């Protein structure tokens, strides 16, 4: 199940890239599972995802909670809480 990942702000900086294609194993069912799995992919990923509580997510351009199922997702964005306005 290939997923297009998008990263923003310090998540992007720590991972070291703004986008990547990942193929997590079948037992990765939720956004939280995905974050835990991503944290093991590199030192940069580990730094970005060491505290899942600071991460927000969107699946296919819709905000979701970390408990959201990722089945069928084409694109998942991970980022810090927003600070616009």
């Amino acid at each position: 199940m290939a997923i297009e990942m998008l990263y923003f702000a310090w998540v992007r900086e720590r991972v070291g890239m703004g986008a990547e294609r990942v193929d997590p194993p079948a037992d990765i069912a939720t956004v939280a599972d995905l974050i835990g799995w991503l944290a093991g992919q590199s030192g940069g990923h580990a730094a970005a995802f060491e505290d899942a509580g600071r991460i927000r997510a969107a699946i296919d351009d819709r905000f979701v909670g970390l408990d959201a199922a990722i089945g069928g997702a084409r694109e998942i964005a991970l980022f810090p809480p927003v600070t616009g306005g």
Partner: protein
Amino acid sequence: MAAIDPVIDVRVQADDFDVGVELGRLEALGGGAVGSFTGIVRGGDGLIALVLEHHPVMTAKTLRQIAEEAAARWPLLGVTLIHRHGRLEPGARIVLVGTASPHRAAALEATMFLIDWLKTRAPFWKQECFADGGKTWVEARSADNAAAEKWGAAHG
């Protein structure tokens, strides 16, 4: 409230905007009451610029949803939301919220609602750049979340 079909104008852009022109469009809708909020980069503490990053696909869509939520709550003839991205120096405009309504309280309450929701729901991230070369990502503020939450959950 759904009796009025408001003119919703949402823009995400690097360029500056002209507040007089934008509010003039809202004035022309005939409501009689136009409210606005403009956010500007504040200097101090050695800040030389903000860099605003955003999620290019989601931002305009999210701003439109926020504008539609305001139109569902107040009798608005028009809502204008403009949010800049990129590098912005102290004194630069960041964001404009404008509303037009037949009622002054509706125009101003909707303006407050729009900026509160925009701060906590629109996918923008601010990085502060300082004169000494330091860069810091702005942390989300609990006061902003509290301000947004006082308006309750989305209707839609």
